[in-house]
């Protein structure tokens, strides 16, 4: 089998599964639907392993070829094609691995749902879309995948379409993402205009030649073309990867079933923006302005969203805000030109965050869809496997040395400390404080759920038991990489794993400076113990332990005494309120005004009916003249004749 067919197989297997489960769900039944989709994704995963081996271990040449021409116009060919390099190979593995686990988990989680087949069809369709996105060799296909994952996200957030909150959330997610898509599409238009091609290879090759070109968007101002392109593209990334201020859709996306919160809204789709910027590193490296924007936005997101995690009481929303914050860390890495560290964190985060979500899901079904952590507590003894897995996930998330998250997050923090572009100092402080905040909200949730008093209703407590194997086995399968994935830090970050798939300008290469002291994973742990991050994390855990297990009476008092602050956090910095008032209600009001005033009153009222009325008036006037008396007409004729004659004589 040629590699070309392997690549096609990787994307088509899940698509086929999705089509079969979607169109023939009734015929093949529930088991048929999960088997066909799992088979599809499993094939993708195995072929993905093959590709990984081919590219990474056997050092195969980078594949960059067209499958078919989508459209040709103006001498530009827009194509569907694949670029298979180290970055792609790694992303294929991450996507198909998490997707496979989530497929299996779904068998247990969605067991009683009437939309079982539809759900499997959607998540397989998602896998297809995400693979098209990461395997693209051009901007058009990237945008295709980008919008397709957005579509599936829309469908899945609104999966339980009877719930008003779900269909509100999915509309909101779609619209906010569309704001980003607008930026993204304009970025693509700019690329097309200046490079006359949308092929990555062409664009990246020509990019350095354009680094001094400027454009006047507002007459009289000069913008660097590359900066403009990068910022427009990054607006797209901000929506998809939920960066402030386009983050508002992600917490609401938790209305979707938990498996997709893990797969789409934590592990894969929301990291598409991170992947995109890493893919575009040859462009971003040419604009320090753009890198600074990325860095600052990421830092603000990392800290401000983490803080919101502290006041959430819905177990999924805590994890969601944690995702937002971690996406901020990845963005910070990109801004600091530590793209490899961003992708590394993307990978470890995919494992431990999927684990956290799926473990949360295990808790949720054990409690019959209770999501309020204030009504949990003491679950440790009922759900030992879930407990252990959640603990591993939490330790990985907060960056305890030895766990996967430690390596990737510490690499980012170290990298930022070496960065010299504008905003680096600010970002460094944000990510450090963020470590404390992460540990605090993570273990606040962990303690409230698994330790302390059992606060659930007696009825719920009676039926409490560990989830079945179809749920716990996926947890264990994710717990393993949540620990061990970190030990690949050496090969991934410091040994040139990404080769030419990621470009870093020598003056920005912070990872190289981090690597100067790198002596292996264990050495990195030792180095980490000498820095502040580990102790900040420990302090966070201790604080959570004190406030939520030792003195649970303090938090409510604190909330009451700092009322304005608590309200600010509880209202999520009023971001939703502002959006709702200014954009949603404002748009509706403006539309109504334009309709009633512009269309109905001015155009129809004044212009159309006004014309009709004035014609009516004129004809009434003219009617007055037509009296029917012959002498009136004769008189008029004489007057006319006289006027005509005198005009003739005068001229």
């Amino acid at each position, binding site marked *: 089998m040629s590699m070309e067919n392997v690549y096609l197989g990787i994307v088509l297997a899940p698509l086929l599964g999705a089509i079969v489960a979607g169109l023939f769900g009734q015929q093949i039944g529930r088991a048929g639907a999960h088997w066909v989709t799992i088979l599809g994704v499993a094939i993708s995963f195995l072929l993905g392993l093959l590709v990984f081996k081919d590219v990474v271990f056997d050092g195969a040449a980078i594949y960059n070829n067209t499958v078919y021409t*989508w*459209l*040709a116009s103006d001498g530009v060919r827009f194509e569907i094609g694949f670029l298979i390099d180290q970055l792609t190979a790694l992303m294929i593995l991450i996507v198909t691995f998490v997707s496979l686990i989530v497929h299996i988990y779904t068998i247990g989680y969605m067991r009683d749902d009437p939309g079982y087949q539809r759900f499997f069809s959607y998540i397989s369709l998602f896998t297809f879309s995400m693979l098209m996105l990461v395997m693209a060799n051009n901007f058009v296909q990237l945008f295709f995948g980008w*919008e397709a994952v957005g579509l599936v996200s829309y469908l899945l957030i*609104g999966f339980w379409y009877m719930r008003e909150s779900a269909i509100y959330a999915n509309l909101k997610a779609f*619209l906010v993402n569309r704001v980003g898509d607008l930026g993204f*599409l304009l970025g693509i238009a700019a690329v097309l205009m200046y490079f006359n091609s949308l092929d990555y290879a062409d664009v990246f090759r020509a990019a350095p030649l354009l680094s001094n070109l400027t454009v006047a968007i507002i007459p009289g101002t000069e913008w660097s073309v590359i900066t403009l392109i990068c910022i427009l593209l990054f607006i797209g990334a901000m929506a998809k990867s939920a960066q402030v201020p386009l983050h508002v859709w992600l917490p609401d996306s938790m209305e979707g079933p938990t498996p997709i919160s893990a797969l789409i809204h934590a592990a894969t789709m929301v990291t598409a923006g991170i992947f995109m910027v890493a893919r575009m590193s040859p462009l971003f490296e040419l604009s320090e302005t753009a890198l600074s924007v990325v860095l600052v936005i990421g830092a603000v997101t990392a800290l401000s969203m983490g803080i919101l995690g502290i006041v959430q009481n819905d177990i999924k929303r805590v994890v969601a805000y944690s995702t937002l914050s971690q996406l901020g860390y990845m963005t910070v890495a990109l801004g600091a030109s530590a793209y490899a560290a961003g992708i590394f964190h993307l990978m470890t985060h995919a494992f431990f965050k999927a684990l956290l979500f799926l473990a949360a899901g295990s808790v949720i079904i054990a409690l019959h869809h209770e999501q309020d952590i204030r009504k949990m507590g003491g679950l440790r003894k009922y759900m030992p496997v879930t407990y252990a897995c959640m603990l591993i996930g939490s330790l990985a998330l907060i960056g305890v040395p030895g766990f996967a998250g430690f390596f990737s997050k510490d690499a980012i923090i170290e990298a930022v400390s070496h960065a010299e572009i504008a905003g680096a100092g600010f970002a460094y402080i944000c990510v450090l404080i963020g470590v404390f905040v992460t540990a605090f909200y993570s273990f606040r949730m962990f303690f409230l759920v698994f330790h302390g008093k059992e606060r659930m209703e007696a009825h719920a407590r009676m039926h409490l038991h560990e989830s079945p194997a179809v749920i716990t086995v996926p947890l264990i399968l994710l717990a393993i990489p949540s620990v061990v994935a970190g030990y690949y830090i050496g090969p991934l970050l410091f040994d040139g794993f990404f080769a030419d798939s990621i470009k870093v300008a020598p003056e920005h290469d912070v990872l190289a400076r981090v690597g100067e002291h790198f002596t292996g994973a264990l050495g990195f742990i030792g180095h980490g113990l000498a820095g502040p991050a580990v102790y900040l994390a420990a302090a966070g855990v201790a604080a959570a332990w004190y406030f939520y297990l030792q003195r649970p009476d303090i938090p409510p008092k604190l909330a009451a005494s700092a009322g304005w602050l608590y309200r600010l956090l509880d209202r999520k910095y009023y971001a939703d309120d502002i959006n709702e008032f200014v954009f949603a209600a404002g*748009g509706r009001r403006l539309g*109504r005004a334009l*309709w009633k005033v512009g269309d109905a009153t001015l155009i129809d009222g004044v212009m159309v009916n006004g014309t009709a009325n004035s014609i009516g008036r004129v004809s009434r006037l003219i009617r007055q003249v037509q009296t029917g008396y012959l002498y009136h007409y004769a008189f008029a004729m004489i007057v006319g004749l006289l006027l005509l004659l005198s005009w003739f004589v005068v001229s």
Partner: protein
Amino acid sequence: MLSDWPILSLVIWLPIAGGVLTLLAGRGGDGPAVRPIALVFAIATFIASIPLYTLFDTATYRMQFTEQVPWITTFSINYQLGVDGISVPLILLTTFFTVLVVIAGWEVIKYKAAQYMAAFLIMEGLMNGVFASLDAVLFYVFWEAMLVPMFLIIGIWGGHRRVYAAIKFFLYTFLGSVLLLVAILYLYFESGSFSLLDFHDVRLERVPQILIFLGFLVAFAVKVPMWPVHTWLPDAHVEAPTGGSVILAAIMLKMGAYGFVRFMLPITPDASSELDWLIILLSLIAVVYIALVALAQEDMKKLIAYSSISHMGFVTLGFFVVFSIFERNHEVAGAAMGVEGGLVQMISHGFVSGALFLCVGVMYDRLHSRQISDYGGVVNTMPVFASFFVLFALANVGLPGTSGFVGEFMVIMSAFKANFWYALLAGSTLVLGAAYTLWMVKRVVFGDIANDGVRELTDLNGRETFVLGSLAIAVLLLGVWPAPLVNLMHSSVAHLLEQAVASKL
């Protein structure tokens, strides 16, 4: 040889003959043969139109399948037909949609079915005539005659305010047409011929060019419709029966845009270049202003009507960004994408808006309401229908993989080359279009069952599934692989651009 057949005459007169036969079969009540006859003729016409695609030579811009017979020799008026890469897709769209409209009206139309079917068949022939005419008088005759069946469709099978809507429709478009006639007569006196191809070559001074341009603009802008002469459209759509709305949205709106490329750009290139800002301004107002108005609609048909106006703004925008790009690069290369994007948008909008009106028709046939507030949770009782409706809504939103994306993408890419702000304003449709379309979907399709009416809805029958399924395939196919359609246009558009940038002064 099949190519020697008078295919264009066939696609014009076959459906008209079919319409007359249908009328005869329906004399004295609706005979049982009425619907089958209409369907046979609709399908036969569609089949007859297929060679226009398969035998089309994409290498030349010259008119193909030409026919010429002297008609009124005194004024050198000819029955002159011919098509190029711009008109062929529009004729295929017309013949395709007529089949669907006949099927869609099969059981629904009980009152005067023969007349209903005949009106659509005759209108099909006349619309094909508009797209195929190369003689201005012939064009004008078809252009005007086409209004009559549509006027009747709205006036006879329409809703409560059908007479108001029909007259508003007729007057608006008729007033525009008068100026078209004046312009055509002026061009005849200048060129001594009524052939459009001679019009293309006739030299014109600046002032007459601008006056002719404005005359054309009024005539065509009403049909498109462009802001601010658009208010007839929502009324006409609301009152028209489903089939009328479908043809109106899918085909008739394209007539105006067709006029832009067949008349304005090649006949008045200097005026077009001088006044391109005006068209761009009106187009962008259509895209933004109308999208906001669509957001406020409570009637589904009105919402889709406003959405149509907004989407047609992309078409006119794509046609007229050419001049700014040319000014910047001093070569036509790089400008074709806008025009081709506009043309693709015409075809795609035909499919998508036609499909959406059919969807509303499906619901209206069951609940007799077009009000969004009368629905809610339709997916619970009509899951198959809901899948189609969501698909077409997403196509309306311009999701990649559906036809709706292709044209918008191409136009935005071109608009950016002309001016960043054009692209930004046009691009606002990404957000606004999604807002009004998906908000409607949310309120109509999703949610809990809103009332007993919705509770008793039945899902699509075979006939409806066939109609919506065909459109779904078209929308997806065009979205996944638009190359065959666009390749059809390249030569014609390249020639058009040469005409548009060559001064006639």
